């Protein structure tokens, strides 16, 4: 490990931490524009996180230690995930351990702690949300794994940076398998980040909510960490998508110039992805909760079809 790799790594983590709320703000802004509402400020997520950090935490009387440490674990998991996803460069300090399956494991860990913490207090909404979250996760994870398997098959490795580097250096060609998995990935992204059509991020206290139900009992710094982690999760998913499906522009060496170039490229991709996400959310209607399995089954289907098409056609 040399200095430049370490520097890039630190830079990437800091950038992810800093940019995640911004990305969330951007998606919300685009959504507002598309729906003819006056948009909230881009910086609103930062302000609400800051505000929450200044408040005093209120805990339920029967809250256990798990409830208190869960936000730190979740936030930590998301930060580590951000560190191993090659969003800016593929040669970084943590690249040797950046395994795609480990990444899925990190997400699973975060999900488990969120669900446990939500059930810890014992309120009805918490358990409800936990159950739904686990259901979505149970269905979305296999799809995500298969998407990653396909990428691994193509590049003969499960190391994310190597996958991204391989895909980025291939000549441009039509890959039906990748197109199918891209669709599957988008669906998984929507489901995992509690976006429409699975959950509505804009509402509170609705009987069909998932994400908000999990966080109902949190306040102050705990809530801030949880919200920040959620923003990071969205950011991470977007970056995984870039690494697999639009890897061009990522720094494949560790020269300062390449890193410098990769930052505006990443910003551009994020801007486009955010707008696209907002568009999808505006165009689709929220599904009833019991339709969610069908939605995710379709995602799974697309992923497996992609895999099968690759195995058969080699394309």
């Amino acid at each position, binding site marked *: 490990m040399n200095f430049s790799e370490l520097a890039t790594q630190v830079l990437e983590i800091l950038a992810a931490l800093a940019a995640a709320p911004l990305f969330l703000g951007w998606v919300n802004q685009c959504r507002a524009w598309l729906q003819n509402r006056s948009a909230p400020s881009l910086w609103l997520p930062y302000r609400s996180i800051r505000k929450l950090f200044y408040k005093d935490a209120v805990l339920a009387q029967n809250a256990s230690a798990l409830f208190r440490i869960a936000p730190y674990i979740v936030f930590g998991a998301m930060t580590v995930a951000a560190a191993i996803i090659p969003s800016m460069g593929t040669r970084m300090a943590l690249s040797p351990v950046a395994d795609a399956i480990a990444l899925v494991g990190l997400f699973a860990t975060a999900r488990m702690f969120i669900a446990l913490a939500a059930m810890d207090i014992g309120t009805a909404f918490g358990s409800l949300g936990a159950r739904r979250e686990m259901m979505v996760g149970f269905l979305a994870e296999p799809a995500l794994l298969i998407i990653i398997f396909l990428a691994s098959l*193509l590049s003969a490795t499960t190391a994310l940076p190597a996958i991204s580097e391989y895909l980025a250096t*291939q*000549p*441009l*060609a*039509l*890959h*039906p*398998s990748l*197109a*199918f998995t891209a669709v599957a990935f988008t669906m998984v992204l929507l489901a995992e980040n509690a976006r429409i059509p699975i959950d509505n991020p804009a509402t509170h206290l609705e009987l069909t909510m998932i994400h908000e139900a999990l966080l109902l009992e949190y306040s102050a710094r705990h809530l801030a960490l949880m919200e920040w982690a959620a923003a990071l999760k969205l950011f991470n998913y977007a970056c995984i998508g870039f690494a697999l499906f639009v890897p061009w522009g990522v720094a494949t060496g560790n020269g300062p110039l390449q890193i410098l170039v990769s930052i505006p490229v990443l910003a551009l991709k994020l801007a486009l992805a955010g707008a696209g996400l907002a568009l999808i959310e505006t165009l689709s209607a929220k599904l009833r909760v019991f339709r969610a*399995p*069908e939605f995710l*089954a*379709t995602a799974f*289907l697309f992923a*497996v*079809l992609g895999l*099968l*098409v690759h*195995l*058969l*056609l*080699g*394309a």
Partner: protein
Amino acid sequence: MGNTPIDMQLLNACAALLLLLSFAMLSQRRVVSLVNLLAMQGALLCIATLLLAWRTGNNHLYFSAALTLGLKVFLLPWLLHRLIRRLQVYWDTEPMLNIAGTMLVGLLIVVFAFGLAQPISALASTATRSAIGIAVAVILLAFLMMITRRKALSQVVGFLSMENGLFFGAMSATYGMPMVVELGVALDILVAMLVLGVFFFQIREQFDSLDLHHLERLREDK
């Protein structure tokens, strides 16, 4: 993988989309959409045939493509749409197996089809040999659709989709059957559709419905 020529890439894309359309048909409950999907399948088949004709310089494939275009993209869907309008069947009832279940069975079928096609693909010398598995999968998926649907019209769409799969299989394994045979098959399909049209009106007249559960009275022991 990056150095396959562009026409082969397009052919592969056609094959993949054909498979996707088969799944779309499996999940579709609106009869009108089913017919549209069938027409799209026909169009893809036509494009694939054209690409192959252009690639191999095989003239009879151009005729085959024209036949596909005329029959499967325009004539048959038009006939089906007319039937739907005149019989006023717009929705299929809930299929025997729920959609997600059908999809999972469908995936297993695709795996099976790929296994089945392996020995054929291994022997084929055509550029499109890898698509044979997809053709078999389309055939079997159409079969699954016929099993799980109750409305007569959806079953017919499944039947025609199966025919599409067969054509695609013939094309990818051998660059198409001899022209006369292809013409004969096309003629048979057309006549089958006309017979069915007559038939539907008879069923309709008799039962006031095209739901096939009316047609479950004859048993082995009657």
